[in-house]
Each structure stands twice: as C-alpha cells, then as structure tokens.
C-alpha cells in the first residue's frame, strides 16, 4: 500500500485530477454558444413614399398602428414590424 503511504504522490494525483476536470468544464462552457442580449425595435414605413425608419420599441406599439410623421414627405407612418435584434457588445 505504498500509494496511500506517499502523501506527495496522492497530492499530485488529486491535483492532476482536479485540473483535468476544471479544464474540461472550461472547454465545455466556451463551446456553448451564449445568447447575446436582445432589444426590441419598431420598424416604421411611410404610407406615401415608402421611407423606412427603425426606432426603439415603446410600450403600446403594435403592427398597423399609425405613429409619427415621415421626415421626407410629412405623411403619417405605419408600424410594419416589431422585432428583437442582438445588441453588439464591445469586446
């Protein structure tokens, strides 16, 4: 039973084992595609000239709601879409 007798050998084995497990866990967490945070945006389109504008979503927005005026021709704009996009984070 020299294995149990030699504390240094036992220590080395334990340290080695723990490092291997930690390394594996680290690699696994790196491999998982982490989801980036998303924000909701509202897409407006001019009812006359077709000018498109994307703005931040505000509570109460829904598709087909007439909201705001076109910056080009002054006609009312209609909400075409509400969707979420990924927020690009500085690395």
């Amino acid at each position, binding site marked *: 039973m020299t294995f149990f007798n030699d504390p240094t050998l036992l220590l080395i084995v334990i340290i080695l084992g723990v490092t291997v497990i930690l390394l594996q866990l680290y690699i696994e967490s790196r491999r998982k595609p982490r989801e980036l945070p998303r924000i909701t945006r509202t897409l407006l389109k001019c009812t006359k000239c077709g000018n498109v504008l994307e703005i931040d979503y505000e509570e109460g*927005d*829904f598709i087909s709601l007439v909201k705001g005026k076109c910056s080009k021709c002054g006609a009312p704009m209609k909400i075409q879409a509400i969707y*979420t996009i990924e927020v690009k984070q500085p690395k």
Partner: protein
Amino acid sequence: MPGDWTDYIGQIIFILFFLMLFTGMNQKIQVKLWAYDIRNKLSIIKRYADDSRSRIEEILNKLGVREPSGIVNKFMNFFMIEPVDIEPTDIIRRLDHLIRSRERIFKDSLARTLPELGKYERSLLESSLEIASVLNYVYKSIRHYLLLGEKYNNWVLLMQLQFMMPETMKLVETYYKSLDSFIKGTPIGDSVGPLVAYKIMEKGKILSKNVIEDTVVAEVWLDNRRVYVIKAEGPGSNVGKPGKVLADLVEKLSGNVDLVVTIDAALKLEGEELGEIAEGVGAAIGDPGPEKIAIERATSRHNIQLSAIVIKMGLPEALHAMKKELYEAVERTVDYLLNLIKNATKEGSTIIIAGIGNSIGVAQ
C-alpha cells in the same frame, strides 16, 4: 517500519470501499446527490413561478383590484378534464365544448372582477395568467415526484427526474421569459401566421372586413383574384377560431373556392435553420383538434386544394418576442405565397388564406 499505522488506515478505507459497493451505500450517496441537485433546481423553478405570480398581482393591483391573490389562485388551479376517448363518437364536439366553456369561464370571471377592463388588456392578462399557471404546475409536479421518490426510497424515479431536469429547466426558462412579451404585448414568434395574413391584406385592396368570434375575415382584391384573409383579431393575445370561421366561409361560398392556404409556425427539428420555409398539404394549425378538423372537413367536402406553409422555429423563438430573422422569414413567406397563388390559380378565382397563430401585437 512494519505495521505502520497509516498502513492500517489504508486497509480499512479499502475494506470500507468494498463493503459500500456490496451493501449499496454508494448508491445511497448517489441518490442523496441527485435529490440535492433536484432540490436546488426546484428552488429556481419556484422563484420563477413566484415571480411571475407577483408580477401579475402587481398589474392587477395597478388596475385597481384590492385582493389580486384570489383571482390569481383561481386561474392557477383551474383544470380541464379531457373528454372520453375510448368512445370517439363526437369527441371533437365534446372537446370543442370544453375548450369554449373554459374560455368563457376565464373571460367572464375576469370581466366580473374588472368590468372596465378593455378587451386588449384582458387578453394579455389572460395569457400571462396561463403562463404563470404552467410554471406553477411544473413546480408542483417536480416537487411531487421528488417527495415521492424520497418517501419510498425509489431511486429509479429520482434518477429519471434528475436526468429530465436540464430539459425541464430549459422549458421553464422559456415560459418564464415569454411573460415579458405577454405583459407588454409585443409580437411573438408564433405571430408569424397572422403577420403574413396582415401583409397580404396590405398588398391588395380591402373590399370588406368582419370580425366573427375573435377572428377577422377580410375580403381582398389581389392580382385579379378574390382573396379571403383570415387571422385572429389583434393586437391582443388571441388565437381566434380560424378553423370554424374558415369552414363557415367555405359553406357560405357554397364550396366555390379554388385554393385554401394555411400558414403557421412549426416546431423545427434540432439542427434545422431558424425561419426556414416549407410547403406542404394539409391544415397547418396546432390546436387540440376542433379547429384543424373543421378545415379538413370543409376542404375535403368540396374537394378544395388545401396547402400549408410553415415557418420553422424552436419553442423559445415561438414564445418569445419575434426575432428579426423571423420577420425576414415572414417577408419571404409573403412572396412565396403570392407566387403560389399566381401559379396554382387562374385570374378571377377565389382563395382563402388563413394566418394561424397568436395575433399578439398584430392588428389588422
């Protein structure tokens, strides 16, 4: 030195190890670890369930309800007993009756406590309550099996539970996160069907528009064809009764319809692309049965071509706020649909397009 005391300790540890192996002690330790892990995850589920509940109570409070926990309790514990299925005669009618009764009870009791509440707010509240009740149900079931496993020392049950936990946690997170959309009223992934329907309405000239049973039927002149567009009434959280309305419309037109197209979100297989479009035949609708069978019966009775277009997405994408990728898929689907209509029908034909799904955030 012979007989060193550390030598004995080593031997004793070895013997203990052996004994544990034969007496099943190692398994007991394993079971304890499993139970510990399940308990940890259960507390996370509880936090989600409690949090969703308190968020709803807060909303009710703001709307002027003094004792919101009473209403929330009632909805959280509401159940529906499935109809008898070993005797299938008129099972669809019985199921339909139960679904409608449930909806009516939900609506009526909300209307009673909050009479001045608008249709839109009420629909959002209803859906939020449904999500909270799902979370509560998952919490109660997991707790039940955990306690059962511990009570009867059933380690197979605990093992199964432990192996199911990652999937369950994912599901719980998905539902919990979807609460954001339902409280705010933004379109979700499942809204792609109604959104395609809305875009088709916009493309043509609207001749008439009616609302029947929370479902919109718009008669649109498009490409020299008469197109009836069906979608749930928005912008509240509502799936309407597209099957029944479609069937009634086919009867009203005495079967003079050349093409019926249903558009819906479909669960993608793992590894499939988000927002992929696929065409097929059949009724693309994921209800428990009554709506789907109504479409199938109406089209088969009059021998009308029944096409389906689905947009593929995972469950999280279907329940969370619509991703831009899905909106792009909607635009592609509209083009696809216009092409399909052009190729499959002649000018002057009558077509029905049904955008299936939740109309949250999509008006008409």
